[in-house]
């Protein structure tokens, strides 16, 4: 038997490379936004200046565009048609405690290329909601809601609730490099506006003809036939000569880098004052019959119901229409960093209202690192995030610390909680307190936005170039965001793509894949590699050559045995047939 410890030590030391001089501490401080031991007075001055700048910006927006009084306390638009009011009441009939007298307001109507669009809105249960309906050659109906508190604290003259929602499918398709997608009938963006906003302008990554309708303190932007590879990049509201951008979360486009939005620092306390671990929910452990039984109409949330040990419908916030199904059920194929020995998971599912959110955690250790669990779910429209979960009995109260507007209490009943947040709120900090008011846990959420250091992706507006085509498919490349290369290949109408870090000499940059019929190798090899020798798990060895440094090769499973199609090793051979690179893959 090999004694691997000294081998590992020796090899890793060899691979580590030479020692580098210590890094740049000043750069660390700059990234941390810290100065070298600033004086307290100076820090306070800086803080005061930052607050003053925010206040000035908010006052400037309010002065130019007015506030959101129409949405907060007035009646924007006009009464909706009886048909829409009836449809609205059908949707909200099952919402617990939702005022049935709530009047739907008609905000915007428009007819564009054979499609009738209607945007209605209402205010209720601490939120504002927009109901968007399209009928005609394309149809859709959807509801998007956001907390009213966001309008009270808003710094921007609008709040976007939906960006680039594709409506219908036209007969035509759009091809961009390796990918062909159906062209939608239209893409729609909508939201609410401050009282004084007169116009809204939309900018796309690539020019696109957009009609924007502004009425009833709301807007709808309709772009007929917008390419699925094109997205809205900027929304600007104007009043007189004043204009201001409305922040929003851009929708993702295939084969494009995810867009990141710069966020301020989270607010709220960061010091945990009492450490609690291994908490529990006693009523849950005792199978106490809290809340109500899960009604038949919601049983589908529990799947087949097979193996469900316990399930109840609870009310995290009695003033809100949402309910939460909490359950103990088999973990099945769920993976929590390993299979669960007891095969049990605890799940919470938000149902019956404006927001949807789900989370599951391993039973027995759901509070092992914090006294509350949390799952984040992006709502349809991509602009509102909902964090929901369960808190242990150690938690008495919870608070939300948004980026704007000061802390808000979070309702917590029967250990369930949830909170909705928009981009204006992010990053949010959720803080849990014990009965003595001490902080026992906190978590920060940045929503669905990608982290600032994301994976390499195709550069903005990158054009894909076909670099190889053979009987199996084609290989395309595009420059990546890190100055490297993205490689995509198409085969049988499907597309797969990946972006490597900067191209490394001496390395076979290969993508390996397989489905039920084929295994494939695609990618790029160094210039001195003239042949590629691929070893399969069943002992078979296949050789083929690159074309202009690119390879695309497919193995048909039907000619192979068992799982022998798995690729376990690839060798790069030079012009003389010598093996100059060997790469091994998991067995």
């Amino acid at each position: 038997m090999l004694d691997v410890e000294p081998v590992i030590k020796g090899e890793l030391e060899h691979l580590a490379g030479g020692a580098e001089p210590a890094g740049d501490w000043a750069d660390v401080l700059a990234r941390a936004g810290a100065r070298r031991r600033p004086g307290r007075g100076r820090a306070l001055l800086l803080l005061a200046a930052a607050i003053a700048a925010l206040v000035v910006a908010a006052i400037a927006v309010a002065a130019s565009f007015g506030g959101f009084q129409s949405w907060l306390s007035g009646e924007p638009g006009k009464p909706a048609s009886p048909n829409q009011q009836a449809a609205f009441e059908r949707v909200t009939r099952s919402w617990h405690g939702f005022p049935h007298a709530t009047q739907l307001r008609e905000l915007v109507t428009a007819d564009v290329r054979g499609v009738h669009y209607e945007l209605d809105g209402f205010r209720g249960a601490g939120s504002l909601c927009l109901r968007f309906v399209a009928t005609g050659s394309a149809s859709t109906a959807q509801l998007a809601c956001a907390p009213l508190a966001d309008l009270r604290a808003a710094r921007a003259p609008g709040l976007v609730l939906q960006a680039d929602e594709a409506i219908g499918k036209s007969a035509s398709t759009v091809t961009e490099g390796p990918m062909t997608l159906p062209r939608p009938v239209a893409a729609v963006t909508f939201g609410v506006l401050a009282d004084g906003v007169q116009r809204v302008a939309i900018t796309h990554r690539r020019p696109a003809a957009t009609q924007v309708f502004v009425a009833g303190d709301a807007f709808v932007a309709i772009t007929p036939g917008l390419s699925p590879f094109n997205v809205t990049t900027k929304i600007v509201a104007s009043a007189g000569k004043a204009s201001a951008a409305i922040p929003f979360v851009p929708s993702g486009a295939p084969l494009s880098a995810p867009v990141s939005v710069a966020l301020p620092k989270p607010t709220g306390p960061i010091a945990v004052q009492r450490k609690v671990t291994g908490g529990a929910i006693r009523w849950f452990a005792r199978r106490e019959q809290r809340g109500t039984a899960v009604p038949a109409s919601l049983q589908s949330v529990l799947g087949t119901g097979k193996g469900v040990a316990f399930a109840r419908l609870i009310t995290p916030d009695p003033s809100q229409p949402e309910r939460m199904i909490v359950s103990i059920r088999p973990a099945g194929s769920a993976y929590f960093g390993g299979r669960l020995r007891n095969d049990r998971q605890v799940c919470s599912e938000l149902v019956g209202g404006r927001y949807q959110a789900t989370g599951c955690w391993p039973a027995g250790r759901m509070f092992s690192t914090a006294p509350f669990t949390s799952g984040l779910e992006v709502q349809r429209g991509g602009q509102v995030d909902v964090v929901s979960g369960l808190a242990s009995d150690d938690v008495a109260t919870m608070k939300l610390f948004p980026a704007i507007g000061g802390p808000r209490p979070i309702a917590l009943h029967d250990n369930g909680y949830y909170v909705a947040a928009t981009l204006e709120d992010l990053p949010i900090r959720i803080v849990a307190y014990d009965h003595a008011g001490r902080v026992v846990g906190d978590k920060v959420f940045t929503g669905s936005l990608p982290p600032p250091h994301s994976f390499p992706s195709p550069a903005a507006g990158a054009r894909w170039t076909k670099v190889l085509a053979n009987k199996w498919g084609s290989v395309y490349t595009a420059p990546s965001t890190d100055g490297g290369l993205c490689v995509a290949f198409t085969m049988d109408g499907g597309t797969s793509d990946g972006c490597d870090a900067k191209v490394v000499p001496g390395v076979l940059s290969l993508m390996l894949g397989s489905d039920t019929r084929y295994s494939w190798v695609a990618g790029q090899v160094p210039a001195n590699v003239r042949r590629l020798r691929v070893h399969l798990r069943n002992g078979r060895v296949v050789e083929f050559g690159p074309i202009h440094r690119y390879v695309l090769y497919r193995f048909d499973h039907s000619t192979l045995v068992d799982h022998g199609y798995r690729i376990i090793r690839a060798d790069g051979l030079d012009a003389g047939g010598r093996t100059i690179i060997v790469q091994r893959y998991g067995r």
Partner: protein
Amino acid sequence: MHRDSRMSEIERLYQSSYNRFLNVARGIVGNADAARDAVQDGFAGAIRARGSFRGDGPIEAWVWRSVVNAALKQRRPRLVEVGAPAGESPAPDEVIGLAPLVASLPERQRLVVFLRYYADLDYRAIAETLEIEVGTVSATLASAHRSIRRSLSEVKADA
């Protein structure tokens, strides 16, 4: 401990152990530039959050956690297996070494191997860094040893 004395301690750690952090980050992200970036980000994150350090364990493990997390965030998708260091086309005997074997280990095993042999952390510090039990560290390292031993035996048999 006062926030600024924590800052001094973090700075001392940076100055004295920069290469250990860099080696682990390089092992995770796969290239030197991204690794340097991850170390900078990891330390910056530790400075920003130093107020939340509860002092119930060594600050070194806490900073390691920040650097490891920064490296994991920065790591690209593992579509490509890297088998050799940049800028060289070494002879095959040199390439059939440990790097691809370590690269093919499951993520947790790889992290534990890096922290054990690059960072020279003991089991308790690794457990603190990865927020797992000490027993899990021991079991994970044993699994990694088994996998590497098996692969090395196969390489020898192939040769």
